[in-house]
């Protein structure tokens, strides 16, 4: 054993530093299926509490849908528990091919390749298709997994101001000498819930001969009239060269992700993407359940329609209650508090009121932009939303922030 007291002290010290900075992530245990109402053990060892869940990515409320659970059972019975292989050796079943085809049809792309997660898709896609002669130009607020993937790739990279198309254009001009240019963005940004203007981005890409990659993890299944995603919302279906997305949020919520897009790029991922080549195949039960999800969302908009109604209703009610929110069109609603301690304290008090939400602050969001991020789900009903709004009103009143705007809250609590 070489794990000496001295070595242990090094790592224990690092943990202490995280705690001192107030960034330590506590353990929270969910003792029920995922859903609008869950049973939570928090803090560890505490008595279980029934709370309404307003912090899951369960946008369509399908995580525990009986038809999907049934399909997962069917997958287990018909194709077994695990594949014990990566995809390219003996880990690809007919159902993996079927699911890829259904995702391709749903997103309106040319081809799709499944990965164990979207984190893996994002980690692998850049290195698989680009080299030193290329450049990646990324929005500054893209998801951490895209940042990691970009850093693993030998292509040069640059960034542009968040959703600032003028700045993007400057960068496209600056890098006109490269073999290829790849613009990278999230479709919906997970912290602010804002939508990237893909119509303008595609127009710039066409003008400067650039490709576009969009991470649709917080959009697939519910953004756009039929839930295809941000590209549907901006009438850009067929114009996005690469879409990465997840099956772990709206589309069932289990796990799995994909790269979907131009067939040559997907083919290169199949040859070169290391998380695809060196990681286990998606389990049959998840694949089968995901096929069911794709069938449901491809033919029926009831869940995304309900989610849209819920999000609009919550935005309207919470604003009327006097809380300060970031405007938007998505089920991600940031209740802005600006001060980290206030965000943390209010989230704790909301939990005591039976509403499970989380406070976010720097470095997860920019300094001075602390908030509680509320995520609506189609699994919520009106009464649940009313309870959440009432709790926000009660807790907001306790802290004296009702009716205050950004300046008012900062004047009272600082940034």
């Amino acid at each position, binding site marked *: 054993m070489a794990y000496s007291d001295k070595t242990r002290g090094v790592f224990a010290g690092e943990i202490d530093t995280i705690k001192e900075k107030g960034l330590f992530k506590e353990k929270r245990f969910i003792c029920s299926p995922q859903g609008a109402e869950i049973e939570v053990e928090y803090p560890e060892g505490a008595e279980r509490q029934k709370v309404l869940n307003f912090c899951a990515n369960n946008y369509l409320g399908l995580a525990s849908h009986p038809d999907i659970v049934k399909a997962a059972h069917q997958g287990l019975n018909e194709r077994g528990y695990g594949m014990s292989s990566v995809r390219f050796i003996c880990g690809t079943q007919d159902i993996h091919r079927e699911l890829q085809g259904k995702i391709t049809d749903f997103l309106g792309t040319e081809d799709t390749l499944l990965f164990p997660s979207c984190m893996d898709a994002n980690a692998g896609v850049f290195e698989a298709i680009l080299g030193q002669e290329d450049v990646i130009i*990324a929005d*500054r607020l893209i998801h951490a997994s895209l*940042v990691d993937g970009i850093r693993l790739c030998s292509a040069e*990279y*640059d*960034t542009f*101001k*968040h959703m*600032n198309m003028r700045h993007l254009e400057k960068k496209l001009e600056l890098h006109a000498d490269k073999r290829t240019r790849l613009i990278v963005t999230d479709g919906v940004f997970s912290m602010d819930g804002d939508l990237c203007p893909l119509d303008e981005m595609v127009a710039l890409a066409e003008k400067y001969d650039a490709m576009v990659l969009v991470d649709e993890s917080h959009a697939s299944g519910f953004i756009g009239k039929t839930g295809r995603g941000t590209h549907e919302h901006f009438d850009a279906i067929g114009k996005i060269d690469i879409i990465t997305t997840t099956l772990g949020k709206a589309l069932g919520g289990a796990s799995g992700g994909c790269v979907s897009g131009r067939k040559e790029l997907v083919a290169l991922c199949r040859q070169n993407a290391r998380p695809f080549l060196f990681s286990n195949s998606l389990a049959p039960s998840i694949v089968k359940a995901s096929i069911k999800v794709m069938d449901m969302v491809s033919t029926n908009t009831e869940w995304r329609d309900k989610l849209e109604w819920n999000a609009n209703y919550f935005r309207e009610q919470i604003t009327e209650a006097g809380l300060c929110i970031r405007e938007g069109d998505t089920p991600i609603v940031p209740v802005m508090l600006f001060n980290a301690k206030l965000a943390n304290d209010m989230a704790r008090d909301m939990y005591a009121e039976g509403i499970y939400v989380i406070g976010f602050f*720097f*470095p997860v969001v*920019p*300094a*001075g932009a602390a908030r509680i991020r509320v995520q609506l789900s189609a699994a919520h009903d009106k009464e649940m939303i009313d309870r959440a709004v009432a709790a926000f009103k009660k807790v907001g009143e306790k802290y004296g922030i009702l009716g205050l705007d950004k300046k008012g809250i900062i004047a009272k609590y600082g940034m």
Partner: protein
Amino acid sequence: MDEIKKAVLEYVIDEYIDEDDDDIEVEYDTPLISSGIVDSFSMVSLKAFLEKKYKISLPDAEATPDAFDTVNLICTLVQKHQG
């Protein structure tokens, strides 16, 4: 040195501050990285700008978030590599 400081400050404001963001004022000693005005991912454009404009090469080991935290510190690093 003053000329470098002025050019770097101008670049930082132009590159990292939104036109409509009047909450943020950047001066020579304003923390950039530790305050979150510039994140480590976006620092790459600043490094590229310095290398191109001043015809220098900044090794990764020296182009750290600490060394890039203020315009003053950045200029010290540039001067060192200008010889």
